[in-house]
């Protein structure tokens, strides 16, 4: 049985507010947590297989060219080496999120420095690692003319959004800001390196992989290998972080599969940390011009946001920097223009919160500059510029807690109202200041299926190929089912991460919870209908709580209603017009206090408050943790993270975790999170939106504004490392 719903209109019933179990939204512990804290959760490379061979990818130090020959003997003669895989089906790039088809092939066509071109397979990891360095590869190099600098090439223009006349509005403005910002490239740097262990039985392929979106990944892998999708099974019950880098398949999955198919033995391939940095996905660097025109009261009359990003030739993805600029603030005269420079660096793709993670913070800095010019409190300026309806399209917002987040965040943080002047507080060598920024992130939902079985013993089983990449999927899907079926979380078993189960949305774009949660919800609605039918009552009269069916004054154990027979439903959720008819997005506000060292320009975030509204909260504990994670990323984004590319040959210089600086414990102070409950009926049948990325969308701007408030250094380049802060520090 299956329940299908395409959501063409808001679901105002708020069914989950009428159910009785009271488990949804509760800050429950993760059901899989005990496995994780005891080291017994099994990640991709850790599945046991007898006689498993070890593969190591071979990369080439050339920015562009073609592999002309590979001297297999150079590796095969080494101890323990079993095979050199240099099949034309090897992929040379990671697949973009939701591609559903093979990424770039053949790998032998080299497009960026460090591209994998072959795989060496040996009996032991140590043998394979050495042999991979030893394999002799000849390349017809064509790198001299390959463009490497995004600012030195002509860029492709994407379709702009134009309303009115921004240039004119700028000339007429009482207050205006015209500022150009840069952001350096970012790496996802998930803690688990990309890994795959493949087994082939002559007919079908089973791959334990570290991937975020299995239904798409299955199609990508099958297409890469010229197999049918039915021949490929992917298993990913635990994923050691993704942040976009595991949305699509990468070279290790294809390499392990080809080797297993050729050798008839299981093969494991794990990328080295350096390979993860050099080959998977980067967030593009950006150059952004922000123009704001305002009247005497600080109300926007014009809003401009133009951005240049980069990617490899042939890649459609362009960091969607302007995504939330479409709807965050008003201004009748608008120009939003994105352009893409084609350069030879590894593929640019999704890194946590693509677009907003770098696009909101620059607008938020410009807003801060405008507040200063207009002599307004920065919070007040933002409140004045929250538009009534989508500023470019004539449609309403579905729900929006932006003003509440700004007000409640300010109150919790202890924001001092009024216009601001920098350098007001000094403690020894340190300038102290604070800053604010709005948060905004588009909402998306994706088709998803889940099967829910109510077992004769009264417990439930939820099954989908959806993944839990640390987001809390095991908990929240269990809670949706528990709420609908009147069960505690302990009585709901959630199985994830296996393509033998119904295809969910996958984890990405913060849409996993609302999409898969809705599929589980729909399946449970079907189960409730069946139970009601068995009881001979209307479903609307049925309540389920603690394993009992309740109606009127009657009460009956669910096990009795089932009478020894399991019932199951597949919920099938499809996005429809409701998310088109409304401007649907998540909103919030950040407040940060920083200390900037007068002598060295070193910046420390001393405390930070985030207030967020993202629809229904499904689990207050895991939702808060998602926000904490996003805010931690804000600190890296603002202060430390930067991919450094060599100007001569285009290679990534800082390709490890010592030199690419993700924040460490000491960089992250106490963080405060406010979750502002709301119901967004247009967003999904469970009235939930996404939270996995919102905490990263704008917060770096709050830190930048706090740096300015502290020491008077207005820095236009992210990250704001000591050299950049010092260069902007006023003399006196």
């Amino acid at each position, binding site marked *: 049985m299956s329940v299908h719903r395409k959501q063409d209109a808001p679901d105002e019933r708020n069914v989950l507010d009428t159910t009785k179990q009271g488990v949804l939204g509760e800050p429950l512990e993760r059901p899989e947590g005990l496995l994780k804290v005891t080291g017994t959760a099994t990640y991709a490379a850790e599945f046991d297989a007898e006689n498993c061979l070890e593969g190591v990818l071979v990369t080439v130090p050339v920015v562009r060219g073609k592999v002309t020959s590979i001297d297999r003997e150079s590796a095969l003669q080494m101890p323990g080496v079993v095979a050199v895989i240099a099949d034309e089906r090897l992929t040379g790039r990671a697949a973009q999120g939701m591609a559903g088809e093979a990424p770039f092939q053949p790998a032998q066509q080299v497009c960026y420095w460090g591209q994998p071109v072959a795989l060496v397979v040996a009996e032991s990891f140590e043998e394979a690692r050495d042999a991979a360095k030893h394999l002799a590869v000849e390349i017809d190099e064509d790198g001299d003319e390959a463009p490497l600098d995004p600012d030195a090439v002509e860029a492709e223009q994407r379709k702009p959004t134009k309303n009115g006349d921004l240039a004119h509005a700028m000339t007429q403005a009482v207050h205006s800001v015209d500022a150009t910002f840069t952001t350096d490239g970012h790496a996802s740097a998930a803690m688990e390196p990309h890994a795959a262990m493949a087994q082939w039985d002559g007919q079908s392929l089973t791959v334990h992989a570290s991937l975020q979106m299995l239904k798409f990944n299955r199609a990508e892998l099958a297409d890469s290998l010229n197999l049918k999708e039915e021949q490929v099974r992917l298993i990913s019950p635990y994923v050691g972080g993704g942040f976009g880098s595991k949305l699509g398949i990468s070279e290790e999955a294809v390499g392990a599969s080809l080797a297993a198919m050729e050798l008839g033995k299981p093969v494991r391939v794990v990328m080295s940390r350096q390979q993860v940095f050099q080959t998977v996905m980067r967030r593009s660097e950006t150059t952004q011009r922000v123009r704001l025109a305002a009247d005497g009261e600080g109300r926007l009359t014009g809003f401009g946001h133009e951005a240049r990003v980069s990617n490899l030739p042939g890649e459609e993805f362009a960091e969607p920097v302007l995504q939330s600029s479409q709807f965050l603030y008003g201004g009748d005269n608008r120009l939003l223009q994105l352009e893409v420079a084609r350069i030879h660096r590894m593929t640019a793709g999704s890194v946590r919160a693509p677009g907003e993670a770098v696009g909101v913070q620059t607008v938020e800095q410009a807003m801060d500059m405008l507040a200063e010019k207009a002599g307004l409190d920065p919070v007040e300026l933002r409140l004045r510029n929250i538009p009534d309806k989508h500023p470019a399209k004539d449609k309403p917002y579905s729900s929006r807690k932006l003003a509440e987040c700004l007000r409640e965040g300010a109150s919790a943080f202890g924001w001092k109202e009024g216009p601001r002047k920098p350098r007001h507080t000094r403690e020894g060598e340190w300038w102290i200041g604070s800053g604010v920024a709005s948060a905004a992130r588009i909402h998306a939902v994706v088709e998803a299926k889940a099967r829910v079985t109510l077992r004769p013993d009264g417990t439930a089983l939820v099954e989908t190929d959806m993944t839990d990449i640390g987001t809390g999927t095991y908990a929240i899907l269990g809670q949706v089912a528990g709420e609908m079926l009147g069960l505690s979380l302990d009585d709901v078993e959630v199985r994830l991460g296996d393509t033998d189960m119904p295809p969910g949305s996958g984890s990405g774009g913060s849409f996993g919870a609302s999409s898969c949660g809705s599929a589980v919800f729909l399946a449970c609605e079907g189960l409730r209908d069946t139970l009601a039918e068995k009881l001979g009552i209307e479903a609307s009269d049925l309540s389920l709580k603690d394993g009992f069916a309740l109606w009127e004054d009657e009460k009956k154990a669910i096990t009795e209603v089932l009478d020894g027979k399991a019932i199951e439903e597949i919920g099938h959720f499809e996005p429809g017009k409701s998310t088109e008819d409304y401007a649907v997005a998540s909103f919030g506000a950040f407040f940060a206090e920083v200390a900037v060292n007068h002598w060295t320009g070193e910046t420390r975030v001393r405390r930070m408050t985030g207030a967020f509204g993202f629809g229904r909260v499904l689990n207050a504990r895991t939702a808060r943790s998602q926000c904490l994670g996003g805010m931690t990323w804000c600190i890296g984004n603002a202060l430390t993270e930067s991919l450094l590319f060599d100007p001569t040959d285009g290679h990534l210089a800082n390709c490890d975790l010592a030199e690419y600086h993700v924040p460490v*414990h000491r960089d992250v102070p106490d963080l405060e999170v406010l979750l502002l409950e709301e119901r967004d009926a247009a967003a999904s049948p469970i009235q939930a939106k996404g939270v996995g990325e919102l905490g990263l969308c704008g917060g770096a701007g709050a830190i930048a504004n706090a740096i300015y408030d502290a020491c008077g250094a207005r820095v236009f380049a992210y990250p704001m490392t000591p050299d950049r802060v010092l260069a902007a520090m006023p003399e006196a």
Partner: protein
Amino acid sequence: MPITINDTPHDLPDDPRVSLLDFLRSHAGLTGTKKGCDHGQCGACTVLVNGVRINSCLSLAVTHDGDEVTTIEGLGSPVSPSEMQMAFLRHDGFQCGYCTPGQICSATAMLKEIAAGWPSDATEDLEASPQLTGEEIRERMSGNLCRCGAYANIVAAIRDVAGESA
């Protein structure tokens, strides 16, 4: 002499290139210890050797004959978790779970280091006993990266075990 891992003796590998980390994961079947960077830059591979925490990726297994190694599996199991493991669970001190065993091994050792009076970069008075402040915990845990950003909850979990208000 063999190496002892969680009270069980194991023979050392023939290939001297095998790191202690790979020995634990591939030879001893103890995959709770994680490989995040293989170069001592992330802390996911942290284990205790003779009670002292080290990065197992930067140590050759053959150098450890006679040593006593404790891994995350040795600290506690799903049926009998340690206090620190339970505190991480209670405070949601993890998300994806991959850095978690290293964080927990590190945190467990760290409390002993503070008790033993070892100073850190955050210790204000080098000649006094270090206090268990937030800054001390953060500095001493800075060798364990967490990309999910669970740091704030990890500090709360550690404070909980140490008996301070979280």
